[in-house]
Protein backbone atom coordinates (compact mmCIF):
# COMPACT_ATOMS: atom_id res chain seq x y z
CA UNK A 1 0.00 0.00 0.00
CA UNK A 2 1.77 3.17 -1.11
CA UNK A 3 1.74 5.99 1.41
CA UNK A 4 0.00 9.06 0.04
CA UNK A 5 2.62 11.79 -0.33
CA UNK A 6 0.47 14.83 -0.79
CA UNK A 7 3.30 17.18 -1.74
CA UNK A 8 2.58 16.93 -5.47
CA UNK A 9 -1.19 17.63 -5.19
CA UNK A 10 -2.36 20.55 -7.36
CA UNK A 11 -4.34 22.96 -5.18
CA UNK A 12 -4.67 20.23 -2.52
CA UNK A 13 -6.90 18.03 -4.68
CA UNK A 14 -5.50 14.67 -5.79
CA UNK A 15 -7.62 14.72 -8.99
CA UNK A 16 -6.44 18.11 -10.29
CA UNK A 17 -3.67 17.88 -12.93
CA UNK A 18 -0.61 20.10 -13.09
CA UNK A 19 0.00 21.87 -16.39
CA UNK A 20 3.08 20.64 -18.28
CA UNK A 21 4.57 21.62 -21.63
CA UNK A 22 5.79 19.21 -24.29
CA UNK A 23 9.43 20.02 -25.04
CA UNK A 24 10.38 17.33 -27.54
CA UNK A 25 8.70 14.55 -29.49
CA UNK A 26 10.60 11.45 -30.71
CA UNK A 27 8.97 9.26 -33.38
CA UNK A 28 9.81 5.72 -32.22
CA UNK A 29 7.73 3.76 -34.69
CA UNK A 30 4.85 4.75 -37.01
CA UNK A 31 2.39 4.28 -34.09
CA UNK A 32 4.55 5.14 -31.06
CA UNK A 33 5.92 8.52 -29.97
CA UNK A 34 7.95 9.48 -26.91
CA UNK A 35 7.13 12.87 -25.38
CA UNK A 36 9.68 14.85 -23.38
CA UNK A 37 7.87 17.28 -21.09
CA UNK A 38 8.36 19.51 -18.09
CA UNK A 39 6.08 21.31 -15.64
CA UNK A 40 5.14 24.91 -16.31
CA UNK A 41 5.46 25.68 -12.56
CA UNK A 42 9.17 26.30 -11.84
CA UNK A 43 9.01 25.23 -8.19
CA UNK A 44 7.37 21.93 -9.07
CA UNK A 45 9.88 21.35 -11.88
CA UNK A 46 12.71 21.37 -9.34
CA UNK A 47 10.97 19.56 -6.50
CA UNK A 48 9.29 16.78 -8.49
CA UNK A 49 10.74 13.33 -7.71
CA UNK A 50 9.59 9.83 -8.65
CA UNK A 51 10.92 6.23 -8.72
CA UNK A 52 11.38 3.90 -11.71
CA UNK A 53 8.19 1.98 -12.38
CA UNK A 54 5.76 4.66 -11.18
CA UNK A 55 3.16 6.00 -13.59
CA UNK A 56 1.21 9.19 -14.07
CA UNK A 57 -2.20 10.22 -15.36
CA UNK A 58 -1.74 12.41 -18.43
CA UNK A 59 -4.59 14.71 -19.50
CA UNK A 60 -5.43 16.20 -22.85
CA UNK A 61 -7.89 18.61 -21.30
CA UNK A 62 -11.25 18.35 -23.08
CA UNK A 63 -10.56 14.85 -24.37
CA UNK A 64 -9.69 12.83 -21.32
CA UNK A 65 -6.98 11.24 -19.23
CA UNK A 66 -4.79 8.21 -19.86
CA UNK A 67 -2.25 6.19 -17.92
CA UNK A 68 1.39 5.93 -18.99
CA UNK A 69 4.48 4.98 -17.03
CA UNK A 70 7.24 7.56 -16.64
CA UNK A 71 9.80 6.08 -19.04
CA UNK A 72 12.74 8.36 -18.15
CA UNK A 73 15.00 7.55 -15.22
CA UNK A 74 14.95 9.50 -11.94
CA UNK A 75 18.74 9.68 -12.24
CA UNK A 76 18.31 12.10 -15.20
CA UNK A 77 15.83 14.66 -13.83
CA UNK A 78 16.28 17.44 -16.42
CA UNK A 79 12.99 16.43 -18.04
CA UNK A 80 10.36 13.65 -17.92
CA UNK A 81 9.42 11.25 -20.69
CA UNK A 82 6.49 8.99 -21.51
CA UNK A 83 5.82 6.79 -24.53
CA UNK A 84 2.42 6.55 -26.21
CA UNK A 85 1.01 4.10 -28.73
CA UNK A 86 -1.67 5.75 -30.88
CA UNK A 87 -4.68 3.47 -30.25
CA UNK A 88 -7.55 5.33 -28.60
CA UNK A 89 -9.30 8.65 -28.00
CA UNK A 90 -6.73 10.29 -25.72
CA UNK A 91 -3.70 8.78 -27.49
CA UNK A 92 -5.02 10.10 -30.81
CA UNK A 93 -5.49 13.52 -29.24
CA UNK A 94 -1.92 13.35 -27.88
CA UNK A 95 -0.72 12.41 -31.33
CA UNK A 96 -2.21 15.60 -32.72
CA UNK A 97 -0.24 17.74 -30.25
CA UNK A 98 3.03 19.36 -31.21
CA UNK A 99 6.03 20.64 -29.28
CA UNK A 100 5.01 23.47 -26.93
CA UNK A 101 1.49 22.12 -26.44
CA UNK A 102 0.15 21.91 -22.88
CA UNK A 103 -0.93 18.67 -21.25
CA UNK A 104 -2.06 17.82 -17.75
CA UNK A 105 -0.12 15.49 -15.43
CA UNK A 106 -0.87 14.16 -12.01
CA UNK A 107 1.18 11.65 -10.08
CA UNK A 108 3.52 9.91 -9.54
CA UNK A 109 1.26 6.97 -8.61
CA UNK A 110 1.73 3.32 -7.85
CA UNK A 111 4.67 1.54 -6.29
CA UNK A 112 8.08 1.22 -7.98
CA UNK A 113 10.72 -1.35 -8.71
CA UNK A 114 12.22 -2.48 -5.36
CA UNK A 115 15.78 -1.19 -5.91
CA UNK A 116 17.00 -2.52 -2.54
CA UNK A 117 15.71 -6.00 -3.43
CA UNK A 118 17.57 -5.77 -6.79
CA UNK A 119 20.90 -4.59 -5.33
CA UNK A 120 23.77 -7.03 -5.73
CA UNK A 121 21.80 -9.36 -8.01
CA UNK A 122 21.92 -10.36 -11.70
CA UNK A 123 19.10 -8.64 -13.56
CA UNK A 124 17.22 -10.13 -16.50
CA UNK A 125 15.01 -7.63 -18.34
CA UNK A 126 12.40 -9.20 -20.63
CA UNK A 127 10.55 -6.62 -22.75
CA UNK A 128 8.03 -6.72 -25.58
CA UNK A 129 7.04 -3.89 -27.95
CA UNK A 130 6.15 -0.73 -26.03
CA UNK A 131 6.55 -2.72 -22.81
CA UNK A 132 10.17 -1.54 -22.87
CA UNK A 133 9.02 1.94 -21.71
CA UNK A 134 8.69 1.11 -17.97
CA UNK A 135 11.75 -1.18 -18.08
CA UNK A 136 13.79 1.58 -19.76
CA UNK A 137 13.41 3.81 -16.71
CA UNK A 138 14.81 1.06 -14.50
CA UNK A 139 17.55 0.02 -16.98
CA UNK A 140 19.02 3.54 -17.17
CA UNK A 141 18.60 3.87 -13.40
CA UNK A 142 20.59 0.64 -12.96
CA UNK A 143 23.23 1.57 -15.55
CA UNK A 144 23.75 4.98 -13.87
CA UNK A 145 24.48 3.06 -10.63
CA UNK A 146 26.19 0.17 -12.43
CA UNK A 147 28.43 -0.92 -9.56
CA UNK A 148 25.47 -1.79 -7.28
CA UNK A 149 24.32 -4.61 -9.62
CA UNK A 150 25.92 -7.71 -11.09
CA UNK A 151 25.22 -9.14 -14.59
CA UNK A 152 22.57 -7.46 -16.76
CA UNK A 153 20.77 -9.33 -19.54
CA UNK A 154 18.19 -7.55 -21.71
CA UNK A 155 15.97 -9.63 -23.96
CA UNK A 156 13.74 -7.32 -26.00
CA UNK A 157 11.54 -8.10 -28.97
CA UNK A 158 8.86 -6.62 -31.16
CA UNK A 159 6.67 -7.83 -34.00
CA UNK A 160 8.80 -6.42 -36.82
CA UNK A 161 12.06 -4.40 -37.00
CA UNK A 162 9.99 -1.26 -37.64
CA UNK A 163 8.14 -1.86 -34.35
CA UNK A 164 11.32 -1.81 -32.21
CA UNK A 165 11.00 1.09 -29.79
CA UNK A 166 13.83 3.18 -28.35
CA UNK A 167 16.26 2.04 -31.06
CA UNK A 168 18.83 4.60 -29.84
CA UNK A 169 18.75 2.96 -26.38
CA UNK A 170 19.14 -0.51 -27.89
CA UNK A 171 22.31 0.63 -29.62
CA UNK A 172 23.68 2.30 -26.47
CA UNK A 173 23.04 -0.86 -24.42
CA UNK A 174 24.56 -3.02 -27.14
CA UNK A 175 27.79 -1.01 -27.05
CA UNK A 176 27.88 -1.17 -23.24
CA UNK A 177 30.24 -4.09 -22.46
CA UNK A 178 28.65 -4.75 -19.06
CA UNK A 179 25.21 -5.39 -20.61
CA UNK A 180 24.22 -8.46 -22.64
CA UNK A 181 21.73 -6.96 -25.14
CA UNK A 182 19.63 -9.45 -27.14
CA UNK A 183 17.13 -8.00 -29.62
CA UNK A 184 14.67 -10.15 -31.57
CA UNK A 185 11.69 -9.72 -33.86
CA UNK A 186 8.76 -12.04 -34.47
CA UNK A 187 9.11 -11.61 -38.24
CA UNK A 188 12.35 -10.29 -39.71
CA UNK A 189 12.79 -8.55 -43.08
CA UNK A 190 15.63 -8.56 -45.58
CA UNK A 191 17.60 -5.84 -43.80
CA UNK A 192 17.23 -7.44 -40.37
CA UNK A 193 20.37 -9.35 -39.30
CA UNK A 194 19.56 -9.99 -35.64
CA UNK A 195 17.64 -12.86 -34.04
CA UNK A 196 14.16 -13.87 -35.20
CA UNK A 197 11.68 -15.46 -32.82
CA UNK A 198 9.22 -14.58 -30.10
CA UNK A 199 10.69 -13.25 -26.87
CA UNK A 200 9.91 -16.29 -24.66
CA UNK A 201 11.70 -18.61 -27.15
CA UNK A 202 14.73 -16.33 -27.38
CA UNK A 203 14.78 -16.04 -23.59
CA UNK A 204 15.01 -19.84 -23.43
CA UNK A 205 18.02 -19.69 -25.77
CA UNK A 206 19.72 -16.97 -23.71
CA UNK A 207 18.89 -19.15 -20.65
CA UNK A 208 20.01 -16.71 -17.90
CA UNK A 209 20.89 -18.51 -14.65
CA UNK A 210 18.32 -18.23 -11.87
CA UNK A 211 20.85 -18.08 -9.01
CA UNK A 212 21.03 -14.62 -7.34
CA UNK A 213 18.95 -13.24 -10.22
CA UNK A 214 15.72 -11.29 -10.62
CA UNK A 215 13.68 -11.20 -13.83
CA UNK A 216 11.70 -8.05 -14.71
CA UNK A 217 9.08 -8.68 -17.37
CA UNK A 218 6.91 -6.17 -19.22
CA UNK A 219 5.07 -6.46 -22.52
CA UNK A 220 1.72 -7.43 -24.00
CA UNK A 221 -0.26 -9.86 -21.81
CA UNK A 222 0.31 -12.71 -24.27
CA UNK A 223 4.08 -12.32 -23.89
CA UNK A 224 3.89 -12.13 -20.09
CA UNK A 225 1.70 -15.23 -19.97
CA UNK A 226 4.31 -17.25 -21.96
CA UNK A 227 7.37 -15.76 -20.27
CA UNK A 228 6.53 -16.81 -16.70
CA UNK A 229 6.57 -20.57 -17.49
CA UNK A 230 9.92 -20.17 -19.30
CA UNK A 231 11.40 -18.42 -16.28
CA UNK A 232 10.00 -21.13 -13.99
CA UNK A 233 11.65 -23.75 -16.20
CA UNK A 234 14.94 -21.85 -15.87
CA UNK A 235 14.61 -22.17 -12.08
CA UNK A 236 13.30 -18.69 -11.23
CA UNK A 237 11.11 -18.80 -8.10
CA UNK A 238 7.84 -16.70 -8.10
CA UNK A 239 9.48 -14.08 -5.78
CA UNK A 240 12.32 -13.67 -8.32
CA UNK A 241 9.95 -12.66 -11.10
CA UNK A 242 8.70 -9.06 -11.21
CA UNK A 243 6.34 -7.53 -13.72
CA UNK A 244 4.56 -4.24 -14.29
CA UNK A 245 0.98 -4.83 -15.40
CA UNK A 246 -1.23 -2.61 -17.52
CA UNK A 247 -4.96 -2.29 -16.90
CA UNK A 248 -7.69 0.19 -17.86
CA UNK A 249 -7.38 3.01 -15.32
CA UNK A 250 -9.39 6.12 -14.60
CA UNK A 251 -8.50 7.50 -11.15
CA UNK A 252 -4.99 6.03 -10.69
CA UNK A 253 -5.34 6.08 -6.89
CA UNK A 254 -7.41 2.99 -6.03
CA UNK A 255 -10.88 4.58 -5.94
CA UNK A 256 -12.64 3.92 -9.25
CA UNK A 257 -12.44 0.15 -8.86
CA UNK A 258 -11.65 -1.00 -12.39
CA UNK A 259 -7.96 -1.96 -12.45
CA UNK A 260 -8.13 -4.89 -10.05
CA UNK A 261 -6.48 -8.25 -10.45
CA UNK A 262 -8.11 -10.29 -7.74
CA UNK A 263 -8.02 -8.23 -4.58
CA UNK A 264 -5.08 -6.06 -5.71
CA UNK A 265 -5.52 -2.75 -7.53
CA UNK A 266 -2.85 -2.36 -10.24
CA UNK A 267 -2.77 1.40 -9.63
CA UNK A 268 -2.54 1.35 -5.83
CA UNK A 269 -0.96 -2.02 -4.97
CA UNK A 270 1.01 -2.13 -8.27
CA UNK A 271 1.84 -1.65 -11.09
CA UNK A 272 4.96 -3.59 -10.03
CA UNK A 273 4.07 -7.05 -8.71
CA UNK A 274 6.01 -10.19 -8.01
CA UNK A 275 4.59 -13.26 -9.70
CA UNK A 276 4.00 -14.68 -6.22
CA UNK A 277 1.47 -11.93 -5.49
CA UNK A 278 -0.68 -12.41 -8.55
CA UNK A 279 -0.33 -16.06 -9.63
CA UNK A 280 -3.80 -16.92 -8.20
CA UNK A 281 -5.57 -14.51 -10.53
CA UNK A 282 -3.28 -13.62 -13.46
CA UNK A 283 -4.20 -16.59 -15.65
CA UNK A 284 -7.90 -15.73 -15.63
CA UNK A 285 -7.95 -11.97 -15.06
CA UNK A 286 -5.14 -10.61 -17.23
Amino acid at each position, binding site marked *: *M*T*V*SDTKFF*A*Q*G*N*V*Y*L*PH*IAVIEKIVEETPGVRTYHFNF*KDEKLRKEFTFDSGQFGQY*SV*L*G*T*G*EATFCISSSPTRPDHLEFAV*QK*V*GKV*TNALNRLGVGA*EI*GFRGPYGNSFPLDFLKGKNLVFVGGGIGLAPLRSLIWNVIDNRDKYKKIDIVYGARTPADLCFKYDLEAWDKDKTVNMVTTVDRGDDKWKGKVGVVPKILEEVAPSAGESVAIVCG*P*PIMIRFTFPVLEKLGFKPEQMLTTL*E*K*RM*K*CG*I*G*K*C*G*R*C*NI*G*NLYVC*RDGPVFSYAQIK*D*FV*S*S*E*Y
Partner: protein
Amino acid sequence: MANKKVGKKDITGLLEQWSQQFAVFAPSKENGVAEMLKWDGQDTSFLDWYRNTVVPPKASFLPPMEEMFRFQKGKEGYNIEPPPEDENKPLIFGVRPCDARAMAILDMTFKDAYEDPYYLSKRKNTVLVGMGCTNPCESCFCTSMGTSPTDPTNVDLMLIDIGDEFLIEEVTDKGKELTAKTKGLKEATKDDEAKAKQANKASYDRVTRKLDTEGIKDRLLASFDDEEFWEKTAAKCISCGICTLLCPTCYCFDINDEMVKQEGARFRSWDSCGFPLYTKMPMENPRQEKWRRVRQKVCHKYEFYPMTYDIIACTGCGRCIRLCPVNWDITQVIESVPTKTEARK
Protein backbone atom coordinates in the same frame (compact mmCIF):
# COMPACT_ATOMS: atom_id res chain seq x y z
CA MET B 1 -26.48 7.71 27.34
CA ALA B 2 -29.67 9.58 28.10
CA ASN B 3 -31.93 9.01 25.07
CA LYS B 4 -34.52 11.46 23.95
CA LYS B 5 -37.93 10.78 22.42
CA VAL B 6 -40.34 12.55 20.14
CA GLY B 7 -43.96 11.92 19.25
CA LYS B 8 -44.73 10.85 15.70
CA LYS B 9 -47.11 13.80 15.36
CA ASP B 10 -44.25 16.18 16.30
CA ILE B 11 -42.01 14.99 13.50
CA THR B 12 -43.19 17.86 11.27
CA GLY B 13 -42.13 20.38 13.94
CA LEU B 14 -38.81 18.60 14.37
CA LEU B 15 -38.05 18.69 10.63
CA GLU B 16 -39.09 22.34 10.46
CA GLN B 17 -36.61 23.17 13.22
CA TRP B 18 -33.87 21.30 11.47
CA SER B 19 -34.74 22.95 8.16
CA GLN B 20 -33.49 26.26 9.60
CA GLN B 21 -29.90 25.03 9.77
CA PHE B 22 -29.88 22.12 7.35
CA ALA B 23 -31.15 21.23 3.90
CA VAL B 24 -33.45 18.44 5.05
CA PHE B 25 -33.95 15.48 2.73
CA ALA B 26 -36.69 12.99 3.50
CA PRO B 27 -38.28 10.00 1.73
CA SER B 28 -40.85 10.93 -0.92
CA LYS B 29 -42.93 9.01 -3.45
CA GLU B 30 -43.59 12.01 -5.69
CA ASN B 31 -42.11 10.31 -8.76
CA GLY B 32 -43.73 6.96 -8.10
CA VAL B 33 -40.68 5.44 -6.42
CA ALA B 34 -39.27 6.00 -2.93
CA GLU B 35 -36.34 8.43 -3.07
CA MET B 36 -34.74 11.06 -0.85
CA LEU B 37 -36.01 14.46 -1.96
CA LYS B 38 -35.82 17.94 -0.47
CA TRP B 39 -38.43 17.93 2.28
CA ASP B 40 -41.38 20.00 1.08
CA GLY B 41 -42.18 21.35 4.53
CA GLN B 42 -45.24 19.39 5.55
CA ASP B 43 -45.50 15.88 4.11
CA THR B 44 -44.65 13.22 6.74
CA SER B 45 -46.78 10.48 5.15
CA PHE B 46 -43.57 8.56 4.65
CA LEU B 47 -43.90 7.42 8.28
CA ASP B 48 -46.58 4.99 7.04
CA TRP B 49 -45.39 3.73 3.64
CA TYR B 50 -41.56 4.19 3.77
CA ARG B 51 -39.50 0.97 3.74
CA ASN B 52 -36.36 1.92 1.78
CA THR B 53 -35.40 4.15 -1.17
CA VAL B 54 -34.55 2.83 -4.62
CA VAL B 55 -31.51 5.08 -5.00
CA PRO B 56 -29.35 4.59 -1.87
CA PRO B 57 -28.22 7.60 0.26
CA LYS B 58 -24.67 7.04 -1.13
CA ALA B 59 -25.97 9.18 -4.03
CA SER B 60 -25.60 12.34 -1.92
CA PHE B 61 -21.89 11.57 -1.29
CA LEU B 62 -21.02 9.94 -4.61
CA PRO B 63 -23.63 11.52 -6.90
CA PRO B 64 -24.62 9.83 -10.19
CA MET B 65 -22.77 12.70 -11.87
CA GLU B 66 -20.39 15.25 -10.36
CA GLU B 67 -18.21 18.00 -11.80
CA MET B 68 -14.61 17.51 -10.64
CA PHE B 69 -13.21 20.74 -12.01
CA ARG B 70 -13.62 23.22 -14.80
CA PHE B 71 -10.95 24.50 -17.15
CA GLN B 72 -10.63 27.30 -19.67
CA LYS B 73 -8.15 27.48 -22.55
CA GLY B 74 -6.81 31.00 -22.69
CA LYS B 75 -4.07 32.55 -24.82
CA GLU B 76 -1.44 31.86 -22.18
CA GLY B 77 -2.62 28.26 -21.72
CA TYR B 78 -5.03 26.31 -19.56
CA ASN B 79 -6.51 27.56 -16.31
CA ILE B 80 -7.90 24.87 -13.99
CA GLU B 81 -10.64 25.89 -11.58
CA PRO B 82 -11.43 23.54 -8.69
CA PRO B 83 -15.11 23.30 -7.64
CA PRO B 84 -16.33 26.00 -5.21
CA GLU B 85 -16.55 25.07 -1.49
CA ASP B 86 -20.10 23.64 -1.13
CA GLU B 87 -21.55 25.26 1.94
CA ASN B 88 -24.98 23.58 1.95
CA LYS B 89 -25.35 21.33 4.97
CA PRO B 90 -27.68 18.43 4.12
CA LEU B 91 -29.49 16.41 6.76
CA ILE B 92 -30.82 13.08 5.51
CA PHE B 93 -33.80 11.92 7.53
CA GLY B 94 -34.75 8.23 7.47
CA VAL B 95 -31.44 6.51 6.62
CA ARG B 96 -31.78 2.77 7.08
CA PRO B 97 -29.08 0.91 9.07
CA CYS B 98 -28.07 -1.20 6.05
CA ASP B 99 -27.35 1.96 4.00
CA ALA B 100 -25.55 3.60 6.94
CA ARG B 101 -23.29 0.55 7.35
CA ALA B 102 -22.68 0.61 3.60
CA MET B 103 -21.34 4.15 3.87
CA ALA B 104 -18.93 3.04 6.58
CA ILE B 105 -17.73 0.40 4.08
CA LEU B 106 -17.36 3.05 1.35
CA ASP B 107 -15.40 5.28 3.74
CA MET B 108 -12.70 2.60 3.92
CA THR B 109 -11.97 2.90 0.20
CA PHE B 110 -12.33 6.67 -0.08
CA LYS B 111 -9.95 7.20 2.84
CA ASP B 112 -7.43 4.51 1.87
CA ALA B 113 -3.98 5.71 0.67
CA TYR B 114 -5.33 8.91 -0.95
CA GLU B 115 -8.24 10.91 0.53
CA ASP B 116 -11.03 11.58 -1.95
CA PRO B 117 -11.81 15.28 -1.47
CA TYR B 118 -15.27 15.27 -3.07
CA TYR B 119 -16.74 12.29 -1.18
CA LEU B 120 -15.16 13.06 2.19
CA SER B 121 -16.10 16.75 2.28
CA LYS B 122 -19.75 15.84 1.62
CA ARG B 123 -19.58 13.10 4.26
CA LYS B 124 -18.29 15.58 6.82
CA ASN B 125 -20.94 18.20 6.03
CA THR B 126 -23.89 15.80 6.17
CA VAL B 127 -25.92 14.77 9.22
CA LEU B 128 -27.42 11.26 9.03
CA VAL B 129 -30.60 10.68 11.01
CA GLY B 130 -31.29 6.96 10.94
CA MET B 131 -34.67 5.30 11.30
CA GLY B 132 -35.08 1.68 12.39
CA CYS B 133 -37.00 -0.67 10.09
CA THR B 134 -40.29 -1.97 11.40
CA ASN B 135 -41.32 -3.66 8.13
CA PRO B 136 -38.25 -5.24 6.42
CA CYS B 137 -38.72 -6.37 2.79
CA GLU B 138 -38.84 -9.95 1.65
CA SER B 139 -35.52 -9.37 -0.16
CA CYS B 140 -33.73 -7.93 2.92
CA PHE B 141 -31.10 -10.10 4.64
CA CYS B 142 -29.28 -7.52 6.78
CA THR B 143 -29.33 -9.77 9.85
CA SER B 144 -27.02 -12.22 8.06
CA MET B 145 -24.54 -9.48 7.15
CA GLY B 146 -23.51 -8.24 10.57
CA THR B 147 -26.13 -5.55 11.05
CA SER B 148 -29.78 -5.39 12.04
CA PRO B 149 -32.92 -3.39 11.15
CA THR B 150 -32.22 -1.10 14.14
CA ASP B 151 -28.40 -1.02 14.27
CA PRO B 152 -27.44 2.56 15.24
CA THR B 153 -23.67 2.38 14.78
CA ASN B 154 -23.18 4.37 11.56
CA VAL B 155 -25.60 7.29 11.92
CA ASP B 156 -25.55 10.47 14.03
CA LEU B 157 -29.05 9.94 15.51
CA MET B 158 -31.13 6.76 15.49
CA LEU B 159 -34.93 6.80 15.71
CA ILE B 160 -36.54 3.62 17.02
CA ASP B 161 -40.31 3.24 16.54
CA ILE B 162 -41.94 2.57 19.94
CA GLY B 163 -45.65 2.82 19.14
CA ASP B 164 -46.73 6.41 18.58
CA GLU B 165 -43.34 7.86 19.51
CA PHE B 166 -39.73 7.54 18.39
CA LEU B 167 -36.91 6.87 20.81
CA ILE B 168 -33.90 8.98 19.70
CA GLU B 169 -30.50 7.41 20.37
CA GLU B 170 -27.61 9.88 20.22
CA VAL B 171 -24.80 8.01 18.53
CA THR B 172 -22.14 10.57 17.59
CA ASP B 173 -21.08 13.96 18.94
CA LYS B 174 -22.69 15.53 15.87
CA GLY B 175 -25.89 13.80 16.97
CA LYS B 176 -25.62 15.03 20.58
CA GLU B 177 -24.97 18.56 19.34
CA LEU B 178 -28.07 18.35 17.18
CA THR B 179 -30.41 17.14 19.94
CA ALA B 180 -28.96 19.69 22.36
CA LYS B 181 -29.99 22.50 20.00
CA THR B 182 -33.39 20.96 19.22
CA LYS B 183 -36.33 22.11 21.31
CA GLY B 184 -39.37 20.01 22.15
CA LEU B 185 -37.61 16.70 22.80
CA LYS B 186 -38.68 14.79 25.87
CA GLU B 187 -36.38 12.59 27.97
CA ALA B 188 -36.80 8.90 27.34
CA THR B 189 -37.94 6.88 30.34
CA LYS B 190 -36.77 3.40 31.34
CA ASP B 191 -39.87 1.71 29.94
CA ASP B 192 -39.43 3.63 26.67
CA GLU B 193 -36.03 1.98 26.35
CA ALA B 194 -37.54 -1.37 27.29
CA LYS B 195 -40.18 -0.85 24.56
CA ALA B 196 -37.36 0.03 22.13
CA LYS B 197 -35.44 -3.14 22.95
CA GLN B 198 -38.59 -5.15 22.46
CA ALA B 199 -39.28 -3.36 19.14
CA ASN B 200 -35.73 -4.09 17.99
CA LYS B 201 -36.21 -7.80 18.73
CA ALA B 202 -39.50 -7.80 16.77
CA SER B 203 -37.91 -6.08 13.74
CA TYR B 204 -34.95 -8.48 13.89
CA ASP B 205 -37.21 -11.51 13.71
CA ARG B 206 -39.21 -10.06 10.78
CA VAL B 207 -36.16 -10.41 8.49
CA THR B 208 -37.01 -13.77 6.93
CA ARG B 209 -34.26 -14.10 4.30
CA LYS B 210 -31.08 -15.65 5.70
CA LEU B 211 -27.62 -16.13 4.13
CA ASP B 212 -24.76 -18.22 5.53
CA THR B 213 -21.50 -16.50 4.56
CA GLU B 214 -19.30 -18.91 6.55
CA GLY B 215 -15.99 -19.42 4.68
CA ILE B 216 -17.34 -17.74 1.56
CA LYS B 217 -14.01 -15.98 0.91
CA ASP B 218 -12.16 -19.28 0.60
CA ARG B 219 -14.97 -20.97 -1.32
CA LEU B 220 -14.83 -18.16 -3.89
CA LEU B 221 -11.03 -18.28 -4.06
CA ALA B 222 -11.21 -22.04 -4.66
CA SER B 223 -13.83 -21.74 -7.41
CA PHE B 224 -12.34 -18.63 -9.06
CA ASP B 225 -11.36 -20.56 -12.19
CA ASP B 226 -14.50 -22.75 -12.20
CA GLU B 227 -15.78 -21.41 -15.58
CA GLU B 228 -18.71 -23.79 -15.70
CA PHE B 229 -20.10 -22.53 -12.37
CA TRP B 230 -19.72 -18.89 -13.34
CA GLU B 231 -21.26 -19.42 -16.77
CA LYS B 232 -24.31 -21.06 -15.21
CA THR B 233 -24.55 -18.23 -12.63
CA ALA B 234 -24.25 -15.50 -15.23
CA ALA B 235 -26.54 -17.12 -17.84
CA LYS B 236 -29.64 -15.01 -17.22
CA CYS B 237 -27.83 -11.75 -16.33
CA ILE B 238 -28.40 -9.03 -18.95
CA SER B 239 -25.33 -6.91 -17.88
CA CYS B 240 -27.41 -3.85 -17.03
CA GLY B 241 -26.18 -1.61 -14.19
CA ILE B 242 -29.08 -1.80 -11.72
CA CYS B 243 -27.53 -4.14 -9.14
CA THR B 244 -24.27 -2.19 -9.01
CA LEU B 245 -25.25 1.47 -9.56
CA LEU B 246 -28.02 1.12 -6.96
CA CYS B 247 -25.95 -0.94 -4.53
CA PRO B 248 -25.02 1.13 -1.45
CA THR B 249 -21.56 -0.47 -1.19
CA CYS B 250 -20.64 -0.03 -4.89
CA TYR B 251 -18.32 2.89 -5.50
CA CYS B 252 -17.00 2.43 -9.07
CA PHE B 253 -17.01 5.60 -11.14
CA ASP B 254 -16.00 6.77 -14.58
CA ILE B 255 -14.17 10.00 -15.46
CA ASN B 256 -14.92 11.89 -18.66
CA ASP B 257 -14.10 15.26 -20.15
CA GLU B 258 -16.35 17.55 -22.14
CA MET B 259 -15.26 20.71 -23.91
CA VAL B 260 -17.30 23.18 -25.92
CA LYS B 261 -15.26 25.85 -27.69
CA GLN B 262 -12.70 27.10 -25.12
CA GLU B 263 -14.39 25.93 -21.91
CA GLY B 264 -14.76 22.46 -20.50
CA ALA B 265 -15.12 20.34 -17.40
CA ARG B 266 -14.16 16.93 -16.12
CA PHE B 267 -17.04 14.78 -14.80
CA ARG B 268 -17.16 11.83 -12.49
CA SER B 269 -20.16 9.55 -12.95
CA TRP B 270 -21.41 6.17 -11.74
CA ASP B 271 -19.98 3.15 -13.56
CA SER B 272 -20.55 -0.59 -13.23
CA CYS B 273 -18.26 -3.63 -13.52
CA GLY B 274 -21.19 -5.28 -15.25
CA PHE B 275 -20.79 -3.09 -18.33
CA PRO B 276 -18.67 -4.68 -21.09
CA LEU B 277 -16.56 -1.52 -21.65
CA TYR B 278 -15.63 -1.16 -17.98
CA THR B 279 -12.18 -2.76 -18.43
CA LYS B 280 -11.94 -2.35 -22.22
CA MET B 281 -8.44 -1.41 -23.32
CA PRO B 282 -7.65 -0.49 -26.91
CA MET B 283 -5.92 -3.83 -27.56
CA GLU B 284 -8.02 -6.25 -25.48
CA ASN B 285 -10.62 -6.53 -22.77
CA PRO B 286 -9.77 -8.87 -19.88
CA ARG B 287 -13.44 -9.17 -18.94
CA GLN B 288 -15.14 -9.45 -22.33
CA GLU B 289 -17.32 -12.42 -21.41
CA LYS B 290 -20.38 -11.85 -19.22
CA TRP B 291 -19.46 -14.59 -16.72
CA ARG B 292 -16.16 -12.84 -15.91
CA ARG B 293 -18.01 -9.63 -15.12
CA VAL B 294 -20.57 -11.40 -12.95
CA ARG B 295 -17.68 -13.16 -11.18
CA GLN B 296 -16.00 -9.79 -10.53
CA LYS B 297 -19.25 -8.38 -9.12
CA VAL B 298 -19.65 -11.27 -6.68
CA CYS B 299 -15.98 -11.76 -5.78
CA HIS B 300 -15.30 -8.05 -5.19
CA LYS B 301 -17.88 -7.97 -2.42
CA TYR B 302 -17.53 -11.42 -0.90
CA GLU B 303 -13.80 -12.18 -1.50
CA PHE B 304 -11.59 -9.21 -2.46
CA TYR B 305 -13.00 -6.66 -0.03
CA PRO B 306 -12.75 -9.16 2.86
CA MET B 307 -9.14 -9.91 1.76
CA THR B 308 -8.26 -6.18 1.88
CA TYR B 309 -10.50 -4.66 4.58
CA ASP B 310 -11.65 -7.82 6.41
CA ILE B 311 -15.35 -7.02 5.92
CA ILE B 312 -17.86 -8.32 3.38
CA ALA B 313 -18.88 -5.36 1.19
CA CYS B 314 -22.59 -6.22 1.34
CA THR B 315 -25.08 -5.11 3.97
CA GLY B 316 -28.07 -7.19 2.84
CA CYS B 317 -30.24 -4.22 1.76
CA GLY B 318 -31.87 -6.47 -0.89
CA ARG B 319 -32.00 -3.81 -3.64
CA CYS B 320 -30.11 -5.99 -6.15
CA ILE B 321 -32.64 -8.78 -5.58
CA ARG B 322 -35.89 -6.79 -5.81
CA LEU B 323 -34.78 -4.39 -8.59
CA CYS B 324 -33.13 -6.94 -10.92
CA PRO B 325 -35.01 -7.26 -14.25
CA VAL B 326 -34.36 -11.03 -14.30
CA ASN B 327 -34.52 -11.70 -10.53
CA TRP B 328 -30.82 -12.66 -10.27
CA ASP B 329 -30.52 -13.33 -6.53
CA ILE B 330 -27.14 -12.79 -4.83
CA THR B 331 -28.15 -14.96 -1.86
CA GLN B 332 -28.93 -17.92 -4.14
CA VAL B 333 -25.60 -17.40 -5.93
CA ILE B 334 -23.58 -17.28 -2.70
CA GLU B 335 -25.28 -20.43 -1.42
CA SER B 336 -24.57 -22.21 -4.72
CA VAL B 337 -20.80 -21.46 -4.70
CA PRO B 338 -19.18 -24.93 -4.64
CA THR B 339 -18.48 -25.81 -1.02
CA LYS B 340 -15.33 -27.88 -1.70
CA THR B 341 -12.51 -25.69 -0.33
CA GLU B 342 -9.69 -28.02 -1.31
CA ALA B 343 -6.42 -26.28 -2.30
CA ARG B 344 -6.49 -24.66 -5.68
CA LYS B 345 -5.29 -26.62 -8.72
